[in-house]
């Protein structure tokens, strides 16, 4: 084989060989230039500084690396991120103190919220409100942000099962992002199978994607190389988004948007069933640990932002389909119906908020500090009204007045 290649190379004209190596040299030089430029200016999730926050995990695919710290900077924000020794973006979680009540919030990047400082996330705002609300007396509340970038319901369950169930929570809030959690649940449902049937022994997961049939050492080397380079990270994400769309069957409509169509495609239907399964597993385990469970449905930006919605509705209409603004939210509600778990829909408070277009960042799907504030306010009301937290008489009066 090697001999064949060498003899082929020798047949190539010298001038062609020179041109080829010149082009390779130019590509390598420019690779270095773009890599340097991106590291200096271009803050994105592909940045090694951000990628260092994560580590591989055989159960969830990956998780936040305990003890990791970084400063994450993009054109829109700059935040310091610190991961505690339990692997959550929060302060250290020690033994529960007398009079302390804990709420653990499971979810994805919208819960993790690397776009804002920790104290501005809805978890910490909720904690602050509860601790300064006379209705909360005599308890002291701790709200633990257990969100991890890119997680879906399956990973939420696995993270709760293996990590967060040790946090001794009184309430477990499962934050579901209706924009893509059904799709993610469908894609990751294989993780729910027993370990022997799930991941092939010797294979390695790269950000949740198992690279089956690839020798473990080569895959690990490739993963390390890609993680160290911003150019390669971005290229990997591009390849994945294009192939995802290609494989999705309907090249026209983005997969997550199919959850908002009047007729949901089979993978969305399957994803909703998987979500229901994951939530019921979390609730069952939480119940055995003495915790209550609730679900928070977080909307996609276009459900709140009229301009985004109009744009996407037009895009979808070009394929002869109709985009229903609350389509995915309603589907999640129906999917969770009958589990006897309180469900809070965060769409109405965000939609009814003055200047609602300012509740999400312009260039990402994440909540701004204002959006976090609105969600925290709504969550506090929800926790008391659904009796997930014991409310004193004064709070009940306040709630009755609303």
């Amino acid at each position: 084989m090697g001999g064949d290649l060498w003899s082929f190379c020798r047949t190539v004209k010298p001038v062609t060989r020179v041109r080829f190596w010149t082009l390779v040299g130019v590509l390598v030089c420019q690779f270095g230039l773009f890599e340097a430029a991106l590291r200096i200016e271009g803050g994105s999730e592909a940045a090694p500084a951000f990628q260092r926050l994560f580590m591989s995990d055989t159960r969830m695919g990956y998780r936040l690396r305990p003890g990791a710290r970084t400063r994450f900077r993009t054109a829109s924000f700059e935040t310091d991120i610190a991961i505690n020794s339990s692997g959550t973006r929060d302060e250290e979680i020690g033994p529960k103190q007398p009079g302390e009540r804990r709420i653990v919030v499971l979810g994805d990047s919208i819960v993790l919220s690397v776009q804002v400082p920790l104290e501005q996330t809805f978890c910490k705002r909720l904690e602050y409100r509860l601790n300064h609300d006379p209705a909360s007396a005599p308890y002291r509340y701790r709200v633990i942000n257990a969100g991890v970038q890119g997680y879906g319901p399956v990973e939420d369950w696995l993270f709760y099962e293996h990590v967060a169930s040790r946090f001794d929570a009184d309430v477990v809030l499962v934050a579901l992002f209706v924009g893509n959690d059904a799709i993610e649940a469908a894609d990751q449902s294989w993780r729910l199978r027993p370990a022997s049937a799930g991941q092939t022994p010797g294979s390695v997961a790269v950000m949740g994607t198992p690279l089956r049939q690839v020798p473990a050492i080569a895959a690990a080397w490739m993963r390390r190389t890609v993680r160290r380079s911003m150019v390669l990270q971005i290229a990997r994400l591009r390849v994945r988004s294009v192939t995802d769309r290609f494989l999705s069957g309907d090249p026209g409509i983005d997969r997550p948007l199919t959850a908002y169509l009047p007729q949901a495609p089979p993978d969305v239907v399957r994803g909703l069933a998987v979500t229901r399964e994951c939530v019921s597993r979390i609730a069952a385990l939480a119940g055995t640990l003495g915790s209550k469970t609730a679900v928070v449905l977080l909307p996609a930006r276009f459900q709140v932002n009229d301009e985004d919605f109009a744009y996407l509705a037009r895009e979808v209409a070009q394929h002869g389909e109709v985009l229903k603004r609350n389509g995915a939210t309603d589907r999640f509600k129906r999917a969770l119906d009958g589990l006897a778990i309180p469900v809070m829909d965060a769409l109405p408070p965000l939609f009814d908020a003055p200047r609602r277009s300012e509740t999400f960042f312009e260039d990402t799907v994440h909540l701004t500090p204002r959006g976090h504030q609105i969600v925290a306010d709504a969550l506090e009301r929800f926790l008391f009204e659904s009796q997930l937290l014991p409310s004193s008489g004064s709070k009940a009066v306040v709630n009755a007045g609303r």
Partner: protein
Amino acid sequence: MVFNSLQFVAFFLVVYGLYRLLPHRPQNWLLLVGSYYFYAAWDWRFLGLLVASTVIDFCCARYIASRQAPRDRKIALLVSISFNVSMLGFFKYFNFFADNLHALFGLVGWRLDFFTLRVLLPIGISFYTFITMSYVIDVYRRHIEPTRNFLDFAVFVAYFPHLVAGPILRASVLLPQIAAARRITREQNIEGAWLIGWGLFKKMFVADNLARVAGAVFAPAGHPSGLEVLLGVYAFAFQIYGDFSGYTDIARGVSKLMGIELNINFRSPYFVRTPQEFWQHWHISLSTWLRDYLFLPLSYAFSRRLDGVRWLGLRDDFWIYAAATMITMLIAGLWHGAAWNFVLWGAYQGLLLVLFTVPWGGRKRKRAGAAARRPFVRALGVLGMFHLTCLGWLIFRARSIAQIGALFGDLAGRFEPSGRVLAALGLPLLFYAGPLVAVHAFEAAHDDFAVVFRWPRIVRYNVYAALIYLIVLFGDFAGAQFIYFQF
């Protein structure tokens, strides 16, 4: 199936692989089947229209060529034109006229509830109806002989690279290439690969990224400052150019790989100094179509009516030109879309063309002509014309007549320089449009639209590498549709 999708890559690889293996006639069958599949991938329901248009125009052209009596020939021509125009009129303009009729009757308190039919626009209908009409008219004028081979004609109409967004090819250019066996040269492969890469760059890096900048300014609920409007219009100018010329470049590149040459549709249109030059450089296939099949017949008709008139000190030739131009450009505006802002844009373009032909002062004009050859004055002229074009794009991009008024008001009345706006809109504009402008500046300066191939090898390699990195790192991979598909 857009050019910037993996679906198209897979489709083209299959078609191209087979194409290279097959001899000439089976190649044409392959092109026809592939083109119909390409069209059906958008919406198979409208494939019937494409086939009907092909059959009717093929038959009409054959009939015209077989008859000597002018009356018979004219009837066949009218049948062809009526079919194409009524098909275009129904699918493209039914909703527009129905809505306006509603509004008109609504003014006097009448309600017309029976006009509730919502008609979908078949993709590419404006392009292929113009292509088939030009064929029949050329046969009628005896400019070309009609083809006897239906397969060749069907491939000419449906040829997938130009089917949904042009260029609007003439039969005299494409049919001979389809009818004859094709030989693919090394130069065609190199130029084809470059055009595909350059087109993808224009679409994915320039147009799709600037769409966000322009979209933010033209949002219906927005109330932008004058500076934001200006930067948003600049962004749209490069967005629409990158989008449309990018499509054409990919179409030409794909065709070159198959040994077929398509016409150039854009020649650095923002480096011109007059509206006349602009239309010689922008969407050339449409402007020449309009010139040959609309403007010249109209001019001929008006010349008989306006012969010898002299109004406002201007001779008859000016008024003939003005009348024909205004009608042509109003129709050009309406061709772009069934909305009043397109009609207004057509009127604006017509007015510019007319105003630039007014003979403003004889001797002064000669002196101005001499001065115009100086580089600085030329640059000023280019800059001025670019801004006149941008005013047109504001009208074109706006969602309603009311928004046009509001944006002009913001532009004139709320012009507040702001570092924040420059950083948010100006920097992305510079980043995404800068490389495109630089290459076109070279092309315009050397009057050479393949200047890249004349650059030293090391420079070319750097350009190729930079294009790849810019597309991969900053390109939009969402597979957005091309703007001109809706026209």
